[in-house]
């Protein structure tokens, strides 16, 4: 039973597990893998169980961990039809992702040099007139307030006298490997819908009949 998932733990270990869950769920940055509750296999299992009871999961970042929505729960939330962001905010977020990660990556920029900060000028250089600077700026503010993107000056970069630039924020790290793959697939299908990669992807997605990845 979920209600008893921590009842067998001594109080001190229970507190460690709950503190770890709080830091994973509320913290601004991922937790190092060396944190006791994550490094100890028993406590790690309890952290995982508490998150699972909340529809969440651990996300492995290599030498650190964060938390995110479990894939099947994320599917249900998406299918429930509630929009987390407005259409404009989603479009601007996609532009930030394209300019900060996808385009530089396709140009050969090394992974360790990603993301590349992007400014309003570049974001507004798209051909869709609905996404003007006047539309993009308030959307960037909303995305910053939601911690989905970060302005460079918030990351300690001195930008005095220069226009603000932005990068994807810490929420991106909360995506599970499956969600990252979905984002990549959607990017390919959108950016080059008739390209050979998109054709192959569409064939694979049709074969899997997985509506969440289409």
């Amino acid at each position, binding site marked *: 039973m979920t209600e*008893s998932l921590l009842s067998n733990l001594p109080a001190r270990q229970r507190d460690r597990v709950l*503190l770890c*869950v709080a830091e994973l769920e509320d913290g601004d940055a991922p937790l190092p893998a060396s944190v006791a509750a994550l490094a100890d296999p028993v406590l790690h299992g309890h952290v995982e169980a508490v998150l699972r009871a909340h529809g969440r999961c651990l996300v492995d970042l290599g030498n650190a961990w964060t938390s995110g929505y479990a894939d099947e729960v994320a599917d249900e939330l998406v299918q429930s039809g509630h929009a987390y962001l407005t259409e404009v905010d989603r479009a601007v977020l996609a532009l930030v992702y394209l300019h900060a990660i996808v385009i530089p990556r396709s140009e050969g920029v090394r992974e360790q040099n990603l993301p590349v900060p992007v400014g309003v000028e570049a974001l507004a250089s798209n051909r869709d007139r609905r996404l003007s600077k006047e539309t993009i700026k308030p959307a960037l503010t909303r995305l910053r307030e939601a*911690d989905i993107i970060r302005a460079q000056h918030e990351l300690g970069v001195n930008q005095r006298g220069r226009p603000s630039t932005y990068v994807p924020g810490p929420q991106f790290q909360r995506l599970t490997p499956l969600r990252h793959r979905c984002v990549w697939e959607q990017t390919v299908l959108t950016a080059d819908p008739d390209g050979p990669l998109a054709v192959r992807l569409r064939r694979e997605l049709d074969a899997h009949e997985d509506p969440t990845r289409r």
Partner: protein
Amino acid sequence: MNNASAPGALLLARVRFGHAAVALAGERAAAARIAAACGRELVTTTNGRVTMRWTEGHGMVPDEATDALTPPRLRVLAIAVALCWPRPTQALWPGQPTSLAALHAHCYRDAAAARTSYHVDRLVREGLLELDGTTLRLGPRVAGWDGPSVAALAANHDQLRALLQ
């Protein structure tokens, strides 16, 4: 176990997502039991929504060195100021008390709603808000805001109030 089929887990995920408006009594009871076992509790906001917070003694230990007033936290503070300072012709300090549920109700529409309790906790620790049970007030640091800053807030009071609409 499939999380999606566990009513408590799905409801708690919806609470974090910010869309747990309606919950069957049984589903809510199951979610509340899970939350309680994990040091959390469900809170119903003034507009009938459900959110979640850590109970006393649980939650994150603040790191003062890195705990900046980030944009999401600034927005929670702005909503609290709007609630506690309804008329700019009156003094900002001490303002009028509001309820935690009212704050949650207005933060609810934000994408950052999931972490509202966390931000409130940090703002209380920073002295920008005071929390007595479920009653929320502006904190002592707000009393120290200088005249020009308060005048600028008063001049833009309509923007503060717009956060409540």
